[in-house]
């Protein structure tokens, strides 16, 4: 495991991507397929099984050290990570010296760690303590992370595929595709992953294609092109998904590469009507058959959380797959074809489907409409209509573009609506974790109610830059009025403009409103708390999303 621990350290210390890719490639070449496969699975986040809870590990640490629980909590607040806190506290355990333990990563992952998880109570504590005593310093943290399933390293998947490409001589796109839909960390899988294209084994029928991603619009770049070269669509407010029908089976994959068939039985039924060897790219939404627009993100979230949705939920929140691309037809990979041809094939395919699946009446499979665009001047007017149809903006895709792997700037643009805005007052703050450990970065904001009281309205974590975060952190420490565990209540003096994508009624929130994707747009040092918005401004936005401008500018 030392080699893997060293790799993690190198990745943390490396100054640039080139050094990181080199470290990864070097590691994969040195360690052999068994450990390499595990390194890959861990770095790609494809293996995050929790074998022991962080709580249990903390218990073992505290019992042995005699440190009080509250002191551990203080330490944790400073470190922001359980596994690391425990690793840093190990010297306090005064463990007896033990001969160093060095085992291959694969042995840890396949037998040692699961064996630890299977032990009970005292025996488990003793075994963990014995390992802590025997592991070299840098490995305790890693061991804790792997055991509690919290291992994450800041390595983009793109860097890993670049390293794999360097090792194997294969194209990055090919590797990205081979890695889709899960990776079983075995030497065989590693060999199959790196095998030359010509003698590659048949791909599993469940394997999705890497998603093509859009970049935020750069208006100047677009204006220089011919509008006729673009396909314009709504940007739906659902989740990206890939629907696969192959070999008599259906696979519904989310962007996060999770198989979500079970949550959407009605779509599985619909997919039976698709011809063999079909792969659709589209948006998963909740969209009742008779409705003219999707039901918003809230109902979709209810469906996503449910493994086996009951009949009532299926009735109340019916799902629909809004197709916008055809990636495979009759088993043939269409991705190299230009979008114009893929779109034509998609339209033909949907038109030929059995009526029950394709018509709006059934509503299970919908075709994302192509929007007319005469000239660039019309673009803004079109975008403003997005909210009226329940979309969050526009998508622009180059008609002559192939379906790329990942984000290729310039071929797919997303052009989102401006967020709704409200000015709110900072009420509470809590320390973040990881990079933001021990910095007050998780904020809760309030709006005025009719009785001149501030009511909590939204939480936001992002939007300030580092120097603002530091400044606000200092301010929070000096203006704390009360503490509730890790949360500080502060004097209600600081005003922030919050941006968010939408509002929904909610009985679970004190304000009666749930906010979608809130973030800080600006620190309003020019504003006094009295001038912040009140709940009725928010209500107005709920009833008429177009009423935006008036709210922030009372």
């Amino acid at each position, binding site marked *: 495991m030392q080699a893997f621990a060293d790799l993690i350290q190198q990745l*943390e*210390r*490396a*100054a640039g991507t080139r050094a990181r890719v080199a470290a990864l490639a070097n590691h994969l070449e040195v360690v052999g397929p068994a450990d390499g496969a595990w390194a890959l699975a861990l770095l790609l986040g494809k293996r995050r099984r929790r074998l022991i809870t962080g709580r249990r590990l903390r218990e073992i640490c505290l019992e042995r*050290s005699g*440190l*009080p629980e*509250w*002191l551990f*909590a*203080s*330490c944790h*607040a*400073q*470190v*922001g*990570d359980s596994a*690391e*806190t425990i690793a*840093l*506290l190990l*010297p*306090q355990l005064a463990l007896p010296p033990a001969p160093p333990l060095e085992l291959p990563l694969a042995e840890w992952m396949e037998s040692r760690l699961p064996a630890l998880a299977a032990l009970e109570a005292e025996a488990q504590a003793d075994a963990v303590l014995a390992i802590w005593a025997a592991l070299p310093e840098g490995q305790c*943290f890693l061991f804790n992370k792997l055991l509690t399933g919290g291992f994450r390293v*800041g390595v983009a998947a793109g860097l890993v595929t670049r390293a794999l490409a360097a090792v194997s001589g294969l194209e990055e796109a090919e590797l990205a595709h081979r890695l889709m839909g899960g990776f079983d960390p075995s030497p065989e899988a590693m060999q199959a992953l790196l095998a030359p294209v010509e003698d590659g084994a048949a791909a599993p029928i469940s394997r999705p294609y890497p998603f093509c991603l859009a970049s935020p619009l750069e208006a100047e770049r677009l204006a220089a092109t011919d509008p006729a070269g673009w396909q314009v669509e709504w940007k739906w407010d659902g989740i990206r998904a890939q629907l696969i029908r192959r070999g008599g089976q259906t696979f519904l994959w989310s962007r996060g590469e999770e198989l979500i068939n079970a949550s959407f039985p009605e779509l599985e039924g619909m997919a039976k009507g698709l011809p063999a060897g079909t792969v659709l790219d589209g948006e998963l939404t909740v969209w009742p058959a008779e409705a003219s627009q999707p039901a918003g993100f809230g109902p979709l979230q209810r469906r996503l959380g449910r493994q086996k949705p009951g009949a009532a939920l299926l009735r109340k929140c019916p799902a629909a797959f809004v197709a916008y691309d055809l990636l495979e037809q009759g088993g043939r990979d269409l991705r190299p074809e230009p979008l114009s041809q893929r779109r034509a094939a998609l339209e033909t395919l949907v038109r030929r489907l059995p009526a029950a699946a394709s018509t709006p009446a059934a509503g299970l499979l919908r075709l994302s409409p192509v929007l007319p665009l005469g000239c660039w001047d019309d673009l803004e007017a079109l975008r403003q209509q997005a909210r009226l149809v329940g979309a969050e903006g526009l998508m622009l895709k180059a008609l002559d573009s192939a379906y790329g792997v990942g984000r290729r700037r310039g071929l797919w643009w997303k052009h989102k609506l401006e967020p709704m805005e409200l000015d709110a007052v900072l009420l509470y703050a809590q*320390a973040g*974790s*990881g*990079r*933001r*450990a*021990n*910095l007050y970065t998780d904020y809760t904001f309030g709006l005025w109610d009719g009785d001149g009281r501030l009511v909590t309205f939204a939480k936001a974590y992002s939007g300030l830059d580092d120097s603002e975060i*530091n400044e606000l*952190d*200092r301010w929070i*420490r*000096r203006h704390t009025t009360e*503490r509730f*565990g*890790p949360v500080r209540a502060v004097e209600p003096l600081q005003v922030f403009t919050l941006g968010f994508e939408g509002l929904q009624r909610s009985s679970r929130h004190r304000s009666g409103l749930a906010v979608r994707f809130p973030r800080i747009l600006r620190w309003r040092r020019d504003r006094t708390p009295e001038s912040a918005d009140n709940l009725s401004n928010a209500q107005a936005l709920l009833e008429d999303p177009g009423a935006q401008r008036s709210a922030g500018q009372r």
Partner: protein
Amino acid sequence: MVLPGDGLIQLTPEGLYCPAAKAWIDPWRPVSRALITHGHADHARPGSGAYWAVAAGEGVLRQRLGAGIDLKGVDYGEERRIGEALVSFHPAGHVLGSAQIRISAGGETWLISGDYKRDADPSCAPFEPVAADVLITEATFGLPIYRWRPGRQVAAEILAWWRAATQHPSLLFAYAFGKAQRLLAELAALGVEEEVLLHGAVQALMAPYRRAGVVLPPTRPLSELPRGESLAGRLVIAPPSAHRSAWMKRFNAPQTAFVSGWMAVRGARRRRGFERGFALSDHADWDGLLRTVRDSGARQVYVTHGNSDGLARFLREEQGLAAEPLGRAFEGQRSEEGDVEVEGAMPPGRPIESV
């Protein structure tokens, strides 16, 4: 929590005050008479009428507060009568000329620790335990996650880091007063004899250390190096405030590292944006704090700076001592003045008082 109003030491808006000596200890505002534990900017502030400090720290103090200040230098351990109190300064092991201040009057002895550490440091006098009835201690690193490795060992890692980069300059960021000289002294002890380049802020502190006889490698201000001379393979020490400043334009693809106790935590390392973080502090770690409380034999402990609530609670609940935080008045003192060279001044790493 405030100190009792009739005690030997009291808390006033200017800071800790001893009525018997008519003197403040490390006052936050100008006062008539200031007893100074050491020269860091959050402890030694300008504008007071008279200063008392350890003779070994005189050079630094005059440089920072003005050559003409009224400053009485006292030797370590030398007992002086100030007003109705007996006052003595004892080595704190923090930086050159740093002291714990012991004050006795009316049959009672108080000890104000100032900033201190228990670890070996070739650039200053080692900490000496002092007995007292009441102890006021700092708790900058008052959490058991902080446990320092020997300075020599960390210096050896820094040396290896420097030696490995033969084609690039190595830029080491460290607090200009104390940490930088400690590192240089440790490098000298490891056999380094070649010239180390310094940022102007670090250079300014070299003379007092050399006068004090601390063994250091040869140093030169970076500004004296002819333009265009290659910096590949050279070690340069600079204060953290120089990181990502225009000053760094001089360097072609340097490797960077930050030396600070806060670097013990991964999140802090990542947040600061240095490639490497070396955990080395001039403050006491958790075990050092507990040991110092024990060594003092104090019946009452007050805790300032950093995790003051937490350390006080631990002493009270786990060790049965009378201990209280002096809390809020000290929290924010360091960040307010924003002096980056002071370890405790780094807001991102400052521990919260308690949870």
